[in-house]
């Protein structure tokens, strides 16, 4: 199952990852990071496809994507 790693302190809560995620699993948590932003978090890793769209949309390079097993590369990036 793929895993989205959020670098919490880099996130500015802009929600672009949420808009980009086809599975709509990237939500803003209610906790705040040091700068006071509600940082992003993957609410249901099990539905994650590992498509990397969230990380591609993120302006803060706050997301890293991991997968297990084969990666279905929907597009080259």
């Amino acid at each position, binding site marked *: 199952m793929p895993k989205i790693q959020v670098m919490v302190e880099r996130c500015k809560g802009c929600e672009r990852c949420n808009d980009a995620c086809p599975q709509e699993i990237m939500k803003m948590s209610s906790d705040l990071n040091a700068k006071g932003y509600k940082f992003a978090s993957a609410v249901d890793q099990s539905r994650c496809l590992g498509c990397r769209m969230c990380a591609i949309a993120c*302006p803060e390079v706050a997301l890293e994507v991991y997968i297990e097993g084969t990666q279905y590369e929907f597009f080259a*990036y």
Partner: protein
Amino acid sequence: MKKIFSYTDGLTKKTTHYCPGCTHGVIHRMVGEVIEELGLRETTVGVAPVGCSVLAYEYFNCDMFEASHGRAPAVATGAKRCRPNLTVFTYQGDGDLASIGMAEIVHAANRGEKFTTIFVNNAIYGMTGGQMAPTTMPNQRATTCPMGRDVEQVGHPIKVAELLSSLTTPAYVARVSSHTPEETVKAKAAIKQAFQYQKEGRCYTFVEVLSICPTNWGLSPRESNIWLEKEMMPYYPLGVLKRPEDFEGETDGGN
């Protein structure tokens, strides 16, 4: 676990000063990734402009210049001409490039300088607080055209990619966007192509990247994406306007 998307070595670890949702960050990342993937980081010298990306020298993980407003193409010319083995790029906003720096960009492109320009078009002056830019859309409000850009008074927005592609010498001119993941993937391909041409010492390369400015447009990132698509993209069509392959025999783009 296999990592399939990781932080690029082309960027420093510093968090950026850009507003939440501003796609300068996305464009920075793409340029950093391309420089890393083409193995150019250790020979790259970037030129930061004056504008929102004035602090770009803090973010690109390579040697960097800070240029005066509008003059990055001239600084890049000096650097590249004197050390041709360097990979040189300018990263400029629309005020920097299309207003005060118009002569510099037109002539650098027309001389076929062998560097790459990343031109971020967000239709506004960001860093100084949202003034009208040469690329501000008709009727778009800005702090210096509060009633909306009046084309009768100040003329129509400038299409820089088309302007430069009308010159004979510049051989790679493309316009892409960074507002959705889909467009970002295409944008990165164009940026990579530009740096690849430079790596081959082939020609001047120019990539205009449409970008959102939630703060000064007064919209959320999501609404900004919609505004960009509805307002900017019809006026600034995306695509590769010029490629060296298109006119191999003729001028081949450069000296």
